[in-house]
């Protein structure tokens, strides 16, 4: 960077990579986690636990297929229970990965290079967890393919005027593009693993996976163009996904859903919870695998700042919702506000305000922004808060709408909880596997950050 652009704050900041690294040490350090470091007992315990939770998920889903969604707590009027709450929560978590890999790439935030790989993996796994819910909550999951425009003997087609159909296209496009982005990012690094390993079978596997990448200048040129364009495409895509998810609610006329603030406030909330998940994963990973040189204090600080900013947007969203309930003059909206503050689910609502608005304000303090332990716990609080937000949106709006005769209560059953906790297990299990078989940090992008990589004309 030319000297004149370096502000005084830049100099005070922690570096993106600790000094003293070369191409060789960066490569060795990251690839050794996969190739030479033996799996520790802790890894086996963690993986085993998450594997068991995944089995619990499969058990809960198997029983669901056998009995139907009557085993869940959903009833009329609350037809959207945990399934939709968890779907929105997981999809939201995925958003930070795309934000880090695509939007920060376009904004030339090079610090992203050390966290984008596992953030993208997080996106992919979170979308996989999210995808479980809409597929099983349709009631007759073996007919879930009706959501896709597949020619069929009944000669009917999907109803494209429905936001639920938009959601199908938005989420499946998002899953596809995220998978492509993640995979193409891995190609040069899998070539590195192919060249580093002595194990012949592994050489073959990585050689196939990297498609014979050899780092030719022509290849790199097309690769970089592709990567940049994919980032440019993923940027409006990620903003559209949670917008479309919010349309599932906002297009309906239910009080508490029918509002124009939903799209921006959903997107901000998604990034908020996503960064919280990134930190909850990054903090233990950097500690356990000794990656403090690459995931530095700077990354923690920046992520905390993003959380603080998006958290304030979310707070603004809550504020506007409350203001419109009071000022809008619609008695049902006004009642929804009253019901949130004083109704039977006031507990979750107040808890969400505390988790999402009040506690995260401590991030204004620099000392806490740079403390891994504090950040880990604040991120946990935010994840809980964002889950509660979706619970409030889904359940509170449905349980008391226009007619008092159709009011009701929602009580999640153990099957609801097993499915939810099961997806957390599946998510972490996939993360554990990912850490052991693929480089968790993008090696080739880290090389470009080193001073040796600079070329003068």
């Amino acid at each position, binding site marked *: 960077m030319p000297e004149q652009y370096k502000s005084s704050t830049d100099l005070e900041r922690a570096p993106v990579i600790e000094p003293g690294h*070369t*191409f*060789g040490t960066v*490569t060795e350090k990251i690839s050794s986690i996969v190739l030479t470091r033996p799996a520790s007992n802790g890894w086996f315990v963690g993986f085993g636990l998450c594997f068991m939770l995944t089995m619990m998920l499969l058990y809960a889903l198997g029983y669901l297929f056998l009995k139907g969604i009557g085993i869940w707590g959903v009833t009329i009027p609350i037809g959207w229970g945990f399934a939709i709450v968890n779907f929105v929560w997981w999809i939201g978590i995925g958003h930070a990965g795309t934000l880090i890999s695509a939007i920060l790439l376009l904004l030339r935030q090079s610090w992203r290079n050390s966290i984008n790989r596992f953030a993208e993996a997080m996106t992919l796994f979170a979308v996989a967890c999210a995808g479980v819910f809409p597929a099983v909550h349709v009631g007759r999951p073996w007919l879930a393919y009706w959501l896709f*425009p597949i020619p069929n003997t009944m*000669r*009917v*087609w999907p*109803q*494209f*005027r429905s936001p639920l*159909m*938009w959601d199908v*296209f*938005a989420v499946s*496009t998002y899953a*596809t*593009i995220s998978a*492509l982005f993640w*995979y*193409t990012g891995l190609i*040069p690094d899998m070539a*590195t693993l*192919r*060249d*580093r390993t002595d194990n012949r079978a592994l050489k073959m596997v990585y*050689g*196939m996976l990297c*498609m*014979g*990448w*050899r*780092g*030719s*200048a*022509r*290849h*790199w*040129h*097309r*690769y*970089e*163009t*592709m990567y940049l*364009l*994919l980032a440019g*495409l*993923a940027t*409006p*895509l990620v903003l*559209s996904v949670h917008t*479309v998810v919010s*349309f599932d609610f906002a297009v309906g006329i239910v009080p508490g859903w029918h509002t124009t603030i939903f799209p921006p406030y959903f997107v901000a909330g998604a990034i908020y919870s996503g960064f919280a998940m990134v930190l909850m994963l990054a903090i233990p990973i950097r500690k356990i695998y000794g990656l403090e040189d690459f995931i530095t204090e700077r990354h923690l600080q920046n992520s905390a700042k993003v959380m603080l900013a998006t958290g304030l947007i979310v707070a603004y969203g809550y504020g506007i919702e409350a203001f419109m309930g009071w000022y809008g003059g619609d008695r049902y909206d006004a009642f929804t506000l009253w019901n949130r503050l004083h109704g039977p689910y006031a507990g979750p609502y107040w808890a969400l305000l505390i988790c999402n608005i009040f506690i995260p304000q401590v991030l204004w303090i620099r000392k806490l922004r740079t403390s891994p332990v504090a950040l880990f716990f604040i991120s946990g609080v935010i994840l809980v808060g964002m889950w509660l937000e979706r619970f409030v949106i889904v359940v509170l709006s449905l349980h008391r709408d226009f007619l008092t005769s159709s009011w009701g209560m929602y009580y999640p059953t153990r099957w609801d909880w097993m499915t939810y906790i099961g997806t957390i297990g599946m998510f972490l299990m996939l993360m554990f596997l990912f850490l052991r078989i693929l480089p968790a940090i993008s090696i*080739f*992008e880290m*090389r*470009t950050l080193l001073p040796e*990589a*600079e*070329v003068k004309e």
Partner: protein
Amino acid sequence: MKRDPIYGIMAEFDSAQALVDAARTTHQAGYKKIDAYSPFPIEGLAEEIGFHFDEIPLTVLIGGIIGGVSGYLMQYWMSAVDYPLNIGGKPYHSWPAFIIITFEMTILFAGISAVFGMLAFNGLPMPYHPVFNVPRFSSASKDRFFLIVFSSDKKYDPVGVRKFLEALNPRSISEVPS
């Protein structure tokens, strides 16, 4: 045509700067069929070895247009022609409701053509390639930089190319068997 038993002659360099300088000198000396290998993308290196037209942007544009047009027409045909269904009195061809899926299909097709276009134009997957015959080439994915002059180049002659590359002060020079 009988294939040359030698695929090319390869020089190894220590730094990105050395590779870029060597690539420029080699290309300016009239060697046109050359390639450079590096462990990370180096800006401007492809131009130095005479790569000027990148097909990817056009591929993505075409993919995006195909996706968008087919996405919209699919919805139009299904909702207004093949299976017209009255939903709340809305017109069969309710275009505002079709925009979102049109957008998603544009992104989907553009993204897929970006990735598969990159692979196709790069000739990947190609698990075997002659350059892998050089043992030192395994460092090309770590910390070394390579320049190759292909034997198919018009100016190629084994002794002359070797001499030329030696003058560039490389770390090592190897013959690449084909």
